[in-house]
């Protein structure tokens, strides 16, 4: 069982969570960034900042995770990144 720490509910089994994809740099509202935002999603070998949802409590938050080691370094609510 892999644990993911929800900023509201604490550590829970990762099967309780839904992956919502990386936090995007491109803005789909800007026409020249539309295809970038739709198709060219961040795919690094390393740290990735991404959206997750704790399904039972409907908590949407951000996780920072390493895509090679699968280590979750930090989780926090949007706009509340710890210093």
């Amino acid at each position, binding site marked *: *069982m*892999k644990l993911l720490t929800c900023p509201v509910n604490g550590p829970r089994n*990762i*099967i309780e969570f*839904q*992956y919502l*994809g*990386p936090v995007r740099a491109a803005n789909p509202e800007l026409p020249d960034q539309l*295809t970038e935002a*739709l*198709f*060219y*999603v961040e*795919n690094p*070998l390393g740290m*990735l900042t*991404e959206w997750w949802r704790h399904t039972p409590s409907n908590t949407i938050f951000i996780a920072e995770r390493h*895509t*090679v*080691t*699968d280590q979750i370094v930090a989780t926090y609510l949007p706009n509340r990144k710890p210093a």
Partner: protein
Amino acid sequence: MPLTLLKYGLRGRHASFRDIPATPDLKPSYDVVIVGGGGHGLAAAFYLSTVHGITNIAVLEKGYLAGGNTARNTTTIRSNYLTTESIRFYKEGVSLFETMSEDLGFNVMFSQRGQLTLAHSEATMRSFHLRAEMGKHMGVRTEVVDVKTVRAMCPHLNLDEGGMHEVMGGLWHADGGTARHDAVAWGYAKRAAERGVEIHQRTTVTGFRKDGDRVTHVVTDRGEIAAGQVLQAVGGLNGQVAEMAGFKLPIRCFPLQAMVTQPLKPFLDILLSSANMHTYLVQSSRGEIVIGGGSDPYQLASTRSTLDQKEHLAEGVLHLFPFLHKVKLLRQWAGITDMTPDYSPIMGASPMRNYWLDCGWGTWGFKATPVAGKRMAETIATGRVPDILLPFDMRRFDNFALLNEMGATAASH
């Protein structure tokens, strides 16, 4: 043949030979450099050297020959896709498998036993009718079958009549089959090496030197080589290698997990998939049940195996064949799939003039090994992308001309 064999057997000294020569020193320059020594790269090397007469080729492989996704797939070969562009392409792929053992003089154990995909809902049956009609239109053997036919084809199957996953029918694809994945790569490598193609194992590409919109040199950890043309076919690392070449690909990586059981007596002589349960299984010629279909639910570039996916795959298999509940698992593994937004590959031109792409193969690359190799070789030799590959151009994303194949697989993505 028997006389030759007898003479050979009676002769005292036997010269040792190896199918694939040891890695030679790098030459300063090659006509074609193929980045990636998996099935696709080796097939392209084979067709370039045998059909197009280009033999000054280096295949660069970071690890060992065909040790990436070529070794990690579940060897399904089929052409029952959704769009005319895809069906045309994969149909040619299946036909190349049919004659591959003879063409290569190397037994790839191709077994065209047919593939049955099960439907557990009316919605799935509707999509099967669409796929069957598209297949018939393109000359592929695909048809919708009812429960009675499913029972006759697969008498051990749990149909769960009236239950949660009641089998409502299936999509029968008589052209489907399997082949030995390693043999496909080894066969291509052996015949290409005989023509003079150099296969450089444990050689990592670290960058490219460019002049305007052309790649002039490939930089490796064993030195720098000049290249006339470059082909990129590196599976899970396609995004990273493209970045080295200076452009971005619309690719995200997810591990696809599979597993295999202990050998059993033969009971399953077809390839069986369940679209709703995201599980597919086939009994190998050794009797093992190869089980696949578990894509991790989040982006990752690690080939670890997880208990979650093992449980998920086992659940699907036990629903279909409850009598397998005491069977032991022998191995579990994962490969890194390079997924495109429309679940179709990217083949053909790149933003660089002499740099060609064969990537975005996600969970469906093995079946295309011969056709992708053949058509990419044609592209490199003539400098022109053949019509059959044009729909797979990477610019389709900028033009919103996507080729949606999301529903054409039983893998869980």
